[in-house]
């Protein structure tokens, strides 16, 4: 079983080394790929010269979607079977990544999402953002006829065919909810398991509270446009 742990890093000098160490301990069988998305702090220096991990550097900041896309393309060009995504800010505890991968393999799923809201424990994000997430969930449930409690969670494990499909044409701007949408429409199996997240140790959130609703409107627009374009391909 060849596993790739994809760690995304944008200006995570304070946390990135801890996250890598934790991942090495918790997923000893996995290859670790760090995508440095054009960090302007010491992240790049901290990562260069390491032989125990694979590091890809973007020449400029592409945004989280771009970093995921690069990771997915690296995965699809090599013979990995499973991918698990871990954020470089320490938000996703690598100790729980194994749980995601287990469900993926046992249930033969294509995407397993680590959800904060199944058991409602750990860090649950701010109230304003939770409202936005809730609205998104209602719409997803309606369009996909499947309830997803934490559609914006980036703590996810993927099957090879899911990664290869997404690597072709990646939804850069709003990766998480659109990923679910694309995979679901292809009839891929998506499931959620409970995951306990930590409040990010360093870095800044990619979506500020004020931006949450702007983000939401754009996501809804993307989903609706895609939906109008017809059913399963």
């Amino acid at each position: 079983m060849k596993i790739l742990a994809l760690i995304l890093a944008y200006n995570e000098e304070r946390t990135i080394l801890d996250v890598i160490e934790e991942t090495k301990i918790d997923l000893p069988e996995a290859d670790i790929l760090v995508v440095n998305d054009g960090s302007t702090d010491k992240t790049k220096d901290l990562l260069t010269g390491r032989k125990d991990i694979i590091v890809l550097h973007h020449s400029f900041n592409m945004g989280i979607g771009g970093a995921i896309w690069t990771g997915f393309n690296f995965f699809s060009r090599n013979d990995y079977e499973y991918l698990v995504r871990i954020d470089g800010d320490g938000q996703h505890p690598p100790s729980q990544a194994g749980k995601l991968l287990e469900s993926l393999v046992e249930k033969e799923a294509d995407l397993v999402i680590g959800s904060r809201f199944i058991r409602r424990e750990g860090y649950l994000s701010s109230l304003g953002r939770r409202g936005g997430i809730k609205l998104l969930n209602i719409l997803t449930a309606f369009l996909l006829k499947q309830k997803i409690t934490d559609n914006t969670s980036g703590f996810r494990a993927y099957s090879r065919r899911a990664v290869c499909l997404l690597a072709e044409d990646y939804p850069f701007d709003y990766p998480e909810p659109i990923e679910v949408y694309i995979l679901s429409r292809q009839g891929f199996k998506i499931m959620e398991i409970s995951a306990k997240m930590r409040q990010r140790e360093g870095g800044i959130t990619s979506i500020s509270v004020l931006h949450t609703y702007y983000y939401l409107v754009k996501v809804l627009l993307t989903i609706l446009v895609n939906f109008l374009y017809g059913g399963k391909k």
Partner: protein
Amino acid sequence: MNPYPLGLVQILSILFSLSLLVLIIVLIRRKKIREEYAILWIVIFLAFFLLSIFRGLIDNISSLLGIRYQPASLFLILIGFLFLLVFHFSLVISDMKKKINALAMTLAILEESLSKEKKNSS
């Protein structure tokens, strides 16, 4: 034919649109601007040129559209063109962004495999 005498404004606007038209063609010849992006500009300047030569044209367009105040149809045409142009730029920018991302992604992967190969050979 032309009910209006040739005024200074008209001479100026003919010269202005003509020189812009020439400028665009020179830029295309010198390969400073891609043909596909220049086509809309040529259409715009050509329209300016025609409108400034045939002043009655605006009156005809106005009556055709049911606009009583002729300058309004001039503004309408102008805004229409500008709208098209900006829209066209959005398309071009989106396409370029997509391509730049693909390049940066490929570059990142290639750099890594290159440095790995160097390490292996040394």
